[in-house]
Structures are given as structure tokens and as C-alpha cells.
């Protein structure tokens, strides 16, 4: 279709713009390689295939914002098909007489799809622009105390969105109109091109020369514009369409709950931008700046200066402005100077919500942990945290209490829990700090013990031999202390005989399951899993009767981190309690605010609402609910406080799941009111039903 001059002009455009773009892409590759080592390329083929499937099905995008995701789907599927359209248009430009119009059924199907997809892309893109520029959702704004690079704060992201949006509208709009001009030139419509045929009627009165000219202009607006736009890609957030699939493929493949090890023990973590592992640098190029991570971030929601989105955006903006000097050997910038503030770093609850929700596979949380590692190593841990770390180092618990009093809670039981250090047991119960030392949680621990004792389970604890498992210690960045605690626990465990471990605390559960390496080789489970199995095997017998209406809070380290969504729910329902879900449930559960060591630090100045208060408000919005059910000792204390501080005392009761189980087993019935305490399964004649003693 193109004339000889046009053909040469386009080729020149390809060479110039393609060259510029290639330069930009290579520069990104060189920047990413400045990051520290990380193992992300094992099983590369499988990684790529999975990423393509995820992208193809728009899985990661569909996790949130359904309408936006639909509009994105229109653009995404449209553009995927447009690759064929663009190839066709190139051929059409350089092969005389080539056209798909009126060229048979196959070409007809192609035309139909290109016609429909053009319209869908235009609809999708317009909706996205209207959302951003007319509806202006609050989620695209940042808390005023969030550190943001000047260009981004000055509307850089909006401008970028506008440029990309307009490019797409022109590119697709021109292609679509070009087809309409073509049809008008032919003098008749084409049933395979329904929408273009309608538009073509409007051009019916134009002269063939005008139509010919219009077709050429449209071709250039569609195809030439791609070339002009190409060098802009490496600087734009629109780059996500190339980097995101790659980033998804190179995502961490180890369990969610296993942090990467420290790379350089003499200078752990990240102080400067290039101290970060390379996937963190790739993240910044992948980021589409959608703020989905910020929207689910409990720290941002509570008004702290932390925004995981701003962290990625700041990295990107800094790199856009300074990559040349960095590549020329210039100094790598201090992260705390431009990426995020120290207060923000310490606001993270390591709840994993940002990583879970990010459509392009970014993991801002890992950057924050790397920064913490460096801050702690330099001796700058916040004072309140430092005090707890000292206690964990000296006493093995976060309560500053005597290690010898760790099992004092067992004194309230009328039986003795076997000491797993002295006798073999089937189940080793790793109790955890909160369940051992917190007075409210001790009651729950005793209930767990009574349930298992009644069910005839062969279990034991480590008494004062247990130390904090170190899950949150690791997430404060105190890697050395985490290692020390791990070594002590592993040494104690190695001298005991047991077949499985169960824990009360989801944090402890996560560490033992995912971060103890060869130190723990037996299955590790959360008590909800164990209890459900005992209920299903009828070793625990639950009485009939209904026990109110409840909503359940997924603890981050059981749910989002380890997929433990179903057992707690099944247990609650098995106890005759009606379960009503909060809007944010399962993977989307909202963190209580305690994780990542936050429970050891005081509230940040000027927070607007504690995450736990926010969560109780969410529960209260469900209407008449009797119970707020938890399966984590930290949650028990956090939410009991939150019920009081939100003025809901007496309106909703925070209960641990085991309290329902104990009720349903009749363990809490007063002796003499008819319900006999359930005898131990092991006491029954058919003791074969009880697990064999190990």
C-alpha cells in the first residue's frame, strides 16, 4: 500500500526508533544486573510457561478491582490480537495488492476479530482514562506523609498514563478508521467488518483520492506511532507489558514464608539501591503504578508514611533520572534518602498483602526487610524493638521474662503435659512466646492442652527448653538473632523423639515449617489442622447444638503465607457456629498490625486508625455477630484490645477457635450439670482408636 518514499521513511523510522529503544532496554538490563545475586532462574522454562499462563488468563490482575480488570482485559486481549494485526498491516504496506478484505473466510474471521477487538480496546482504554481522570479514585492518592520523588508527586504518573492512553486510542482508533476508509474506497461494506462498515457509510461521499490519503494517514498514525512510541517505552510505566511477564516468571519460587538468606554477612541487607537483589530492581521497571499494593497495605491504611507503591515508584523515578551516572560507576543512592523513610520501613507488618496482590509480581515487602537488615546491623534498630531483641537474645522470649517460667502456664492444668525432652511423643507442641507468656493466651493454651488430653493425643512440650522460633525476629531484619534462636531450638529438638510438630502460633508455624531448613524435617502443622483431623477421625467428638454467629479472621502467617484457609473454617462450622465472612477474607485478609515485630513497637505518631481497629469495624459492619474468631495468640490480644478501643465492648466477643471446640466437646460444662466430661480416648476399652505412643 505504501509508496516507495513512504517505505523508505518507515524503514528509517524503524532503524532510528528501534535503535533508541534497544539502547533503553539494554540500559535497563545493565541496571538490573547491578543488583545483588538472587536465585530466580531455576527451571526457567517452567517459570516462563506458568507466567504466560497467568498473564494469558489475567490471573494476577483479576485478584482485585473487577471493573478495572475487565477494562484491562479488553485492552490486553485486544492488543494480544493486535500483534497479528500489526504484522498484517506491515505486509500490507510492503506487498502490493495484499489485503485481507474480501479474501475469503479465514481472512474474514481475522477481520471480524480485529474489528471487534478494536472496539473493545477503545472502550476499555476510554473507561480506564475516565476512571483515572474523571472519577479520580482515592486509591491513586498517597498519604501526605509518604515520601515520593518530586516528579512523581508532581503528576508524573498521571502524565505517563495520559500519554500511554492517548497513544493506544490513536493507534487503535487510526487502524479502525483506516479500515473504514478502505471499505469506503471499495465502495461497499464487508459483513466481516461490522463496525468499520457502519463507520464507512459516513465516508461514502468522499473522493477516492481523499480516501486514499486518509488510509495512508491512518496507516502512519497506527504503525508509525508505534515506532515513535518505542523509545518512550523504557521510561514509561507502560513498559510493564514487556517486563511484567518476565517479572512474574522470575518471581521467588521458594515458599512465601521463607525469606531469602542474607547475601553478604559482613554487610547484610540493603543500604543503597544496588545493595538490593536484582529482582528488586526489576520490580521497579515492572511496576504499573496501580497502587493496588498500597490499597491493601495495613500500614498505609492506618496513615503511616509507608506505601509499597511509592517505594517502587521512587526506585523507578530515581533510575529514570540517574541510570547513566549509575552505570558510569556513580555512587548508588541511600535508599532511605529517596525510596522510603525509616519510619515507613518500621511500619511494615510483613503481612505479604502487597506481594500477594501485585499484578506484575512485585515484592516491595522484601525490599523493606532488606532495608531492616541493614539498619539493624548498623545498630540503628528502634529503641523499643531493641529492648525486645535483647530480651530474645538473653532470655529466648519477647516478654523479658525468665526462660524458666516458660511453661508456668501448665500449672493450671490437672494433668502433667509430658516433657518431650524426657520421653518420646507423637506430637511435639511448639507453644510459642505469646501462648506461653501472655496471660490471656495462657488460658487458650491450657484449653488446647485439655482438648488434646481429652482426645487421648500423645503430645509433649519442650518446657523451658523452647525458645522463640524467631519468625518475627527474622522479619525485623535481625538475621543473626534469628540464626541463634534457630540453632538453640534445633539443638533442643534434635535431642527429642517425635513424629510431628504442631504449633499454636501461626508465626511459629511459619518459621518451623519454612525457615528451619534441615533443622525440622517432620511435618509441621497448625493446631487448627490437627484439631480438624481429630474431629474428622472422631477422636474428638463434638456435641450437637448451635453456638452463635461468628466471623473469622485469617492470620497472615497461616492464611496468605501458608494457605491455611479451610481447616479453621471447617472447625468453626463443625462446632455448630454459623460463619459469616468479612469482605476481606482468605488471601485478601487484612492484617491485625502485629506482624513483622510491630507488636513490639509502639504505635507510630499520628496514625489515623490502628489496623486492628479497622478490622473490628469491618466485622461490626456485618450486622449482628456474636464472635470474632481468631486462631493466633497475637490476634487474641490485638483484637480484644481493639474491641475495647473501638467502643464495641460487650457487642462482640473475641474468641479463639479452641474455645468453640472445648465448648462443643463439653469440656467447659460444670460437673454435675448433666454433661459428663468426655473421657480420654486412651482410657476407653477400645484404646486402639488412640494414636500409638511413639
Amino acid at each position, binding site marked *: 500500500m505504501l509508496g516507495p518514499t513512504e517505505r523508505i521513511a518507515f524503514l528509517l523510522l524503524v532503524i532510528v526508533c528501534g535503535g533508541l529503544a534497544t539502547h533503553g532496554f539494554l540500559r535497563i538490563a545493565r541496571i538490573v544486573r547491578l543488583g545483588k545475586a538472587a536465585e530466580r532462574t531455576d527451571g526457567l522454562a517452567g517459570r516462563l510457561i506458568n507466567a504466560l499462563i497467568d498473564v494469558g488468563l489475567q490471573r494476577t490482575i483479576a485478584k482485585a478491582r473487577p471493573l478495572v480488570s475487565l477494562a484491562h482485559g479488553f485492552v490486553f486481549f485486544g492488543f494480544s490480537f493486535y500483534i497479528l494485526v500489526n504484522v498484517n498491516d506491515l505486509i500490507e504496506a510492503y506487498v502490493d495488492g495484499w489485503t485481507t478484505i474480501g479474501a475469503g473466510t479465514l481472512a474474514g474471521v481475522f477481520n471480524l476479530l480485529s474489528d471487534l477487538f478494536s472496539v473493545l480496546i477503545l472502550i476499555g482504554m476510554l473507561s480506564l482514562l475516565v476512571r483515572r481522570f474523571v472519577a479520580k479514585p482515592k486509591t491513586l492518592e498517597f498519604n501526605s506523609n509518604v515520601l515520593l520523588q518530586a516528579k512523581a508527586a508532581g503528576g508524573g504518573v498521571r502524565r505517563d498514563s495520559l500519554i500511554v492512553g492517548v497513544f493506544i486510542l490513536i493507534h487503535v482508533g487510526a487502524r479502525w478508521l483506516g479500515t473504514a476508509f478502505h471499505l469506503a474506497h471499495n465502495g461497499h461494506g464487508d459483513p466481516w467488518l461490522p463496525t468499520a462498515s457502519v463507520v464507512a457509510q459516513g465516508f461514502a461521499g468522499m473522493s477516492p483520492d481523499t480516501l486514499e490519503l486518509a488510509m495512508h494517514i491512518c496507516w502512519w498514525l497506527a504503525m508509525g506511532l508505534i515506532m515513535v512510541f518505542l523509545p518512550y517505552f523504557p521510561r514509561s510505566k507502560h513498559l510493564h507489558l514487556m517486563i511484567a511477564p518476565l517479572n512474574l516468571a522470575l518471581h521467588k519460587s521458594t515458599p512465601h514464608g521463607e525469606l531469602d538468606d542474607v547475601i553478604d554477612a559482613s554487610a547484610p541487607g540493603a543500604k543503597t539501591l544496588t545493595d538490593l537483589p536484582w529482582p528488586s530492581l526489576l520490580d521497579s521497571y515492572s511496576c504499573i503504578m496501580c497502587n493496588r499494593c498500597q490499597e491493601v497495605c495495613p500500614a498505609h491504611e492506618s496513615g503511616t508514611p509507608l506505601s509499597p507503591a511509592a517505594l517502587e515508584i521512587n526506585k523507578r523515578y530515581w533510575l529514570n533520572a540517574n541510570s547513566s551516572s549509575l552505570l558510569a560507576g556513580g555512587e548508588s543512592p541511600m535508599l532511605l534518602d529517596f525510596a522510603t523513610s525509616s519510619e515507613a520501613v518500621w511500619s511494615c507488618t510483613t503481612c505479604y498483602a502487597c506481594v500477594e496482590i501485585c499484578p506484575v509480581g512485585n515484592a516491595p515487602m522484601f525490599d523493606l526487610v532488606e532495608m531492616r537488615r541493614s539498619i*539493624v546491623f548498623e545498630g540503628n534498630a528502634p529503641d523499643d524493638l531493641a529492648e525486645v531483641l*535483647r530480651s530474645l537474645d538473653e532470655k529466648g522470649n519477647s516478654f523479658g521474662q525468665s526462660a524458666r517460667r516458660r511453661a508456668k502456664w501448665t500449672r493450671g492444668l490437672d494433668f502433667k503435659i509430658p516433657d518431650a525432652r524426657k520421653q518420646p511423643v507423637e506430637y511435639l507442641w511448639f507453644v510459642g512466646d505469646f501462648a506461653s507468656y501472655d496471660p490471656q493466651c495462657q488460658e487458650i493454651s491450657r484449653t488446647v492442652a485439655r482438648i488434646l488430653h481429652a482426645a487421648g493425643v500423645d503430645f509433649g512440650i519442650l518446657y523451658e527448653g523452647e525458645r522463640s522460633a524467631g519468625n518475627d525476629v527474622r522479619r525485623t531484619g535481625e538475621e543473626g538473632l534469628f540464626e541463634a534462636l534457630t540453632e538453640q531450638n534445633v539443638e533442643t529438638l534434635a535431642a527429642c523423639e517425635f513424629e510431628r510438630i504442631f504449633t499454636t502460633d501461626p508465626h511459629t508455624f511459619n518459621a518451623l515449617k519454612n525457615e528451619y531448613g534441615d533443622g525440622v524435617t517432620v511435618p509441621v502443622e497448625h493446631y487448627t489442622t490437627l484439631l480438624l483431623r481429630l474431629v474428622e477421625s472422631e477422636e474428638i467428638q463434638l456435641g450437637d447444638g448451635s453456638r452463635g454467629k461468628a466471623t473469622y479472621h485469617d492470620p497472615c502467617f497461616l492464611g496468605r503465607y501458608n494457605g491455611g484457609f479451610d481447616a479453621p473454617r471447617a472447625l468453626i462450622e463443625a462446632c455448630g457456629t454459623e460463619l459469616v465472612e468479612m469482605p476481606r477474607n482468605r488471601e485478601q485478609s487484612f492484617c491485625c498490625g502485629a506482624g513483622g515485630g510491630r507488636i513490639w513497637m509502639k504505635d507510630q505518631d499520628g496514625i489515623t486508625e490502628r489496623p486492628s481497629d479497622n478490622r473490628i469495624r469491618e466485622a461490626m459492619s456485618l450486622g449482628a455477630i456474636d464472635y470474632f474468631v481468631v486462631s493466633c495468640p497475637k490476634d487474641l490480644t490485638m483484637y480484644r484490645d481493639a474491641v475495647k478501643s473501638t467502643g464495641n465492648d460487650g457487642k462482640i466477643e473475641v474468641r479463639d477457635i479452641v474455645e468453640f471446640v472445648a465448648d462443643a466437646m463439653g469440656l467447659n460444662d460444670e460437673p454435675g450439670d448433666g454433661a459428663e466430661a468426655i473421657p480420654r480416648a486412651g482410657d476407653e476399652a477400645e484404646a486402639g482408636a488412640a494414636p500409638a505412643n511413639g
Partner: protein
Amino acid sequence: MNTVVLLKRVPDLVEDLEVDSSGTALDSEHLKLTLNEFDDHALEQALLLKEGGGGEVTAVALDSEDVDKMLFTALAKGADRALKITGTGAVNGTSELAEVFAQALGSVNYDLVLTGVQASDDIDGQLAPTVAAKLSVPCIEVITGVEAGDGSVTVHKEYAGGVLAEFEMTLPGVLGIQAAAQSPRYAPVSKVRQIQDSATLDEVAGAGGDNGKFSIVVMTPPETGEGAQMLESVEELIAVLDSKGVI
């Protein structure tokens, strides 16, 4: 300005303290030692002085359970040298301890000696003035701020009731630190471990110690009273007074 910090390990009060069968000492079986919290502030103040104006910081401690880790921690925080006083045998009370420290300081070049203002096991007085007396140098206690001068230090002393005073003390001298200008810094475990592998502790044979002038005759836990009875009303009060025969 070279600073020496005297560090003391004291019984950790979160443990149950019990008197042993001799009735004159704590039962060592249940005893866990920890760094005296005020000494930690003294160390922090010394490190701040070093960071502000240079000089060396030497941490000195008597050999005891876990003392190595404590001294390596001081090095990890930024102390330049750690000195362990070994082989002293039993050291009873502050006066004897001060003698041991004073003798050990003979081998150290210092301008300023810092130590915690008090410790839970100060039996016969506080360490700072006792050491100062043995060294024949001045001493000021209950210090909450130190600024280095030329051959002297300006210190802030806190009196009861919140009254503050500022002193200038000629060096050498001893200060009993109540609180450093900032909370004691945290030494990350990995750094302590790295220091443990790369640095060594200096040792000096202890001299002084048990001088026979001081011994503990009896040690008992404080007697607990019977507790207070909370009265809810005037009537109850009258009833109690009546039952005691007061009215």
C-alpha cells in the same frame, strides 16, 4: 579523650532469687547474670563521647558467667578494647570490687572512667565513688549528660525532684552514669558473632579482691507484710476499729 567503662554483671531480677543454704549468698543455681542496666548507659555515653570527639573506649569487666559475650557485645557496639580481669577469686561487695578495678586500671591509659550510678548488688555503697577514692580522683554521680572539654568534662547531674546542676570536672575522674544521652544501642547478634571470630579480649590478672574486711552475715528475702485490707465503707472502718478495741 580515652574512656574506660566498668561493666558489671548483676543478678537478673526477672529470675526467682533464692538465698542458698549458707544463708549469706544467692543460690547460684537459679541465678542468671546480666549486664547492669546503668553500666549499659555508661558504655553508651562513652561511645557517644568517642563519636563526638575521638579517643578510645575500653570496656573492663570481671571474669564471670557469660562475660565474654558481654565484652564482645561492647566491641560490636564500637568499643576499641575489652579487658577481662581474671583469677580474682571471690569478690565481696563494692569496696573489694572497686579495689580490683582500681588495680586493673593501673595498666590502662585513661582520662575518664564511667560506670553505672548503681547496681542491684551494690552491697556496701556505689562503685563510682569507691573506685574514685581508690584512684584518688574526683567523682560525680547521677549523671545524665557529658560533654568533653579540654582536660575536663562538663556534666549534668540530676537531683531528686528534677533539679539539674551542671559541673565541670577536671580529668582524670570518675562519673556514675544515670542515663546516657540516648538509649543504649543494640548490637546485632551477627555483628557480635563476627567480632567474636575476629577480635580478642585482653586479659589482666586480678589483684585486690577479698580483703577480709567485709563479710555478709546473713541474707534473707524481704519479709512480706500481710498486705492491706481495702475497706469499702465507713461502716466497715468502724467495725474494724471496734474489733481492735480502738473505739
